[in-house]
């Protein structure tokens, strides 16, 4: 290998240290645990809290109409919402703990939770 000629002994050491650093940061990818539950709220009150284990659908009534929420193994999403801008629908599937889709006009939110309840600034 021609390129190997440009590597000095210490370079291997630095590369190994870099690889070790990468390995040390890997757990960060799973920080917050796995998605285990979905919490559906209506007007701030918990409407339903479901395990992300099976396939289920929810129809949540709100001031504008009905928001449809789909639960699948490991993920959840808002399927349909009467709100004008459809932000929560276009957000698509939520699969990580802490992720949340808020349909503000219809006052419905869907949040993913892991084993440990991860608070973010929205909770305060």
């Amino acid at each position, binding site marked *: 290998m021609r*390129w190997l000629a*440009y*590597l*000095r*002994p*210490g*370079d291997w*050491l*630095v*590369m190994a240290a*870099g*690889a070790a*650093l*990468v390995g040390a*940061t*890997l757990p*960060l*990818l799973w*920080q*917050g645990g796995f998605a285990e539950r979905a919490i559906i709220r209506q007007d701030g009150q918990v409407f339903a809290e479901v395990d992300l284990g099976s396939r289920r659908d929810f129809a949540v009534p709100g001031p504008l109409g009905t928001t449809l929420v789909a639960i699948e193994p490991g993920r959840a999403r808002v399927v349909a919402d009467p709100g004008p801008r459809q932000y929560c629908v276009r957000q698509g599937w939520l699969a990580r703990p*802490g992720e949340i889709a808020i349909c503000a006009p219809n006052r419905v939110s869907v949040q993913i939770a892991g084993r440990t309840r991860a608070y*973010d*600034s929205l909770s305060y």
Partner: protein
Amino acid sequence: MTASVTELRVTPEDRRVAWLATAAVALSLVDAAIPSPLPGVKPGLANIVTLVVLIRYGWGTAVWVSGLRVLAGSLLLGYFLAPGFFLALTGSVFSLLVLGVARHLPSRWFGAVSLSILAAFAHIGGQLLLARLWLIPHNGVFLLTPLFAVAALVFGTINGLIAAKLLSDTPVAETTR
């Protein structure tokens, strides 16, 4: 008659810095043209120039070239004083600081690849820090650290190899334009 004429003396050193900064700016344009799967993951080709300059002309010249590159590159790409500019600036400052220390490593053992990897990690470390403190004040920023770290290792190694090749291919006399 003009009362006073400010005479700008252009030293050969100035010309050299300008040439090298131009090369670095050109490479950052190439960098920006390469599509990236994740904002922040870029090859950082311009750092090859910084490395070559550091090893051949010293730290002071490297600071000039790197600073001019960030300034001119951001003006050309239209993100001057936007968040991206401060991210680039922070990354450059951090990697230059680390390079300032790391260049005293014995060169018999540690070559351009070592410097490149250390600089790449300092670059991404500084950027993550700025992003956490200023842009996204939430620890969620660090979720993507492993991806950035892998990119730093891979691109740091590749850029270091290219810099080492450039340094060995061009004799000292040729590059002192």
